[in-house]
């Protein structure tokens, strides 16, 4: 029988090397675990410095404005470009509109010479009025004398009532209303008590009809069930036509009375 102590001594000498990284891992764990347990309190001055530094960092963080996101910058730039483009467009269109009005006025200041329409210039006594005006439609224009034939329609070329454009009848606003060419005019006038009728003549002039006058026009455009004007409408129309005849007799037949003169106009209207 073999000596049992030989077996044990052979086993004693037997050794198996560990895995390659076992040693490193063990070493690290042992070191870190020892380090973890080890702590050294900082000196008091250092502690105060660190606290101050942290406080300052926090303050600076709060005062630094946040960075505006890129998308917002893009949006602001786009809005700025759109506004600038709109301003340029508005400026150009304003100048174009002004030029259009001016050129329309210029074109229409050229008289439209049509068939002769008698122009009465002398007064009822047959005396020639002051100045060089001519009553004959056949005379050609001499110096200071011009006969205007027909209607050139300026500056009344593009009137509008409450925004609705009108083509004048006989180049006359009152005749346009009394001609009934635009039956819808009565609808432009609101209910009684709400009259605020405006007639756009040109860029310098918007005539505001008085409530009384707007009421006359409203009366003139009242119809019966059969579509014919009411008796009141006919009477109002006749009244307006009488007024116009009286006005023409006062200021057109005689050159002695000037409707622009406040005395002449007041005396005629208030007599």
């Amino acid at each position, binding site marked *: 029988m073999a000596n049992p102590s030989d077996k044990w001594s052979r086993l004693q000498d037997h050794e198996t090397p560990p895995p390659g990284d076992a040693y490193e891992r063990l070493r690290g764990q042992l070191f870190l675990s020892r380090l973890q347990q080890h702590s050294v309190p900082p000196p008091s001055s250092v502690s105060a410095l660190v606290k101050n530094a942290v406080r300052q960092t926090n303050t600076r963080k709060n005062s630094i404005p946040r960075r505006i996101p890129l998308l917002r910058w893009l949006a602001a730039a786009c809005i*700025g470009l759109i506004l*600038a483009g709109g301003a340029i467009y508005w*400026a150009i269109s304003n100048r174009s509109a002004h030029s259009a009005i001016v050129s329309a006025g210029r074109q229409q*200041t050229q008289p439209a010479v049509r068939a002769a329409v008698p122009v009465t210039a002398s007064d009822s006594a047959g005396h020639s009025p002051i100045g060089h005006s001519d009553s004959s439609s056949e005379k050609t224009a001499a110096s200071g004398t011009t006969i205007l034939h027909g209607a050139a329609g*300026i500056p009344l070329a593009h009137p509008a009532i409450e925004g609705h454009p009108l083509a004048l009848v*006989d180049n006359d606003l009152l005749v346009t209303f009394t001609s009934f060419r635009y039956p819808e005019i009565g609808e432009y006038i609101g209910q009684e008590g709400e009259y605020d009728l405006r007639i756009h003549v040109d860029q310098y*002039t918007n005539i505001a009809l*008085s409530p009384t006058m707007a009421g006359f026009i409203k009366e003139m455009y009242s119809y019966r069930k059969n579509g014919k004007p009411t008796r009141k409408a006919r009477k109002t129309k006749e009244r307006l036509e009488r007024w116009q005849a009286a006005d023409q007799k006062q200021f057109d037949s005689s050159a002695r009375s000037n409707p622009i003169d406040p005395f002449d*106009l*007041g005396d005629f209207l208030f007599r």
Partner: protein
Amino acid sequence: MVTRIINPIFLLAGVVGFLAFRRAAPPQSPDDLTVSYTLTLSSKRGNTGIGETYNGGIETLFAAGAHARLRLASLMRVQSVFIVMDGALVKRVTLLKESGNDRKRTTMTAGEWKEYNKKYAGSTLQITRDTATILRYLCKKVVIALKDGRQLSAWYTPDIQSPAFAALEPAFAGIPGLVLQYEYVYRKKTLRYRATAISHKPIDPAVFTPPGN
């Protein structure tokens, strides 16, 4: 890097927008004058009859250099007086009815215009202590009295001078300023012209050209 591109775009947009608006603002010309007056007729009865066809009308004064025009626009008629000045003197006057088919045009010399307005010969001006503020201008009241007793009250501002208006409206000859309101009272009815707008925008020369010239 993107913000370096966007910032100049934004700045450029702002500059362009500013220049466009500045350009769009109409230029002003101190010599050109446009004044709009609204006509108002009033009476105790409320209804002034035929006067309602002139009520709400607009009288516009255009003055630029040696040219001036006074235009009355109302439902009843549109009428203008054109005047050409030679310094302070009237050179030529044209009366023109612009509405209707039978438009009439009359041209007068300075002498004929003076004869046409002979009712103002011998009229007197009396400046009173009354004042009124019209379109932010402090105006003084003046009473114009004709020889036949008729009177016209006017409020004028000395801050604006317009010799052309005095030539167009002989009633205002001798008033040291621009009249912004005037009224005539007859048989307890009042005809009032009140300025509602004043402008110094350049006036198109075509405004001073009577049709047919």
